[in-house]
């Protein structure tokens, strides 16, 4: 059986990687063009980054330590996996456009 929780966390790590690339580019541009637009891009990407870091933290602490929580979280893990994979696809497209 596929461990959806682990797959979701792998997708979250991928998201963090993609967001690091995007934030890197946006920060480089922000250093040259200081505007609401460039700051906004950095802010949005950073908030998405926080979201994915929270997912990884939830998995490594709460999920791993609490057996009861682990069981109930596993029941909905495929939803979390679907959400994260869709985000990975979206971010891949964004990073592809950004780095062209």
């Amino acid at each position: 059986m596929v461990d959806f929780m682990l797959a979701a966390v792998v997708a979250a790590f991928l998201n963090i990687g993609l967001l690091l690339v995007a934030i890197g580019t946006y920060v480089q541009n922000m250093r040259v063009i200081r505007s609401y637009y460039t700051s906004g891009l950095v802010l949005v990407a950073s908030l998405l980054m926080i979201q994915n870091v929270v997912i990884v933290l939830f998995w490594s602490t709460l999920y791993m330590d609490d057996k009861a929580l682990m069981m109930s979280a596993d029941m909905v893990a495929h939803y979390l996996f679907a959400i994260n994979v869709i985000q990975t696809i979206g971010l891949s497209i964004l990073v592809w456009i950004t780095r062209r």
Partner: protein
Amino acid sequence: MQNYLPDKFFKNSQKEFFISDTNSGHSVFATTITLPVFSFPEIIPRNLFSFSGTNDGQSGPNPRFKMILWFIIAGTKGGINRAKILNLIKDTPMNANKIATVLNLDHKTIVHHVKILSKNDLVIKAEKDYAAEYQLTKIMKENQSVLEEIMQKIGTK
């Protein structure tokens, strides 16, 4: 129901006609009401999904164009150089080689940037020649104030 919807939705929707009753030999007056037929052009305004470069009589730059230009310049890796290219050819059209010399950049880099810019309808090749000069498109020329605003923010950096 008719009171709440515009008349055009009920155009040809209500029909009155006579049906001849074959059993009794009398004609029967019948009214049928068919549901209004919607077509997408009626509900969704035209040009909602298409991007026309005109300002439709509004003053100032087109907000949608402004967003595209900001993203291409501030949201992509080589955006700053793209802005410099646009700023360079806004008055005098130049070919890729000349742009590379003036901006002190690699010829390949310039060709790549110009390709992205022309794909996004910001620059156009004057003729189909290898050393053809690039110039701003009509829509880019109409919204040059956005480029000037961005160039001011870039400054001399």
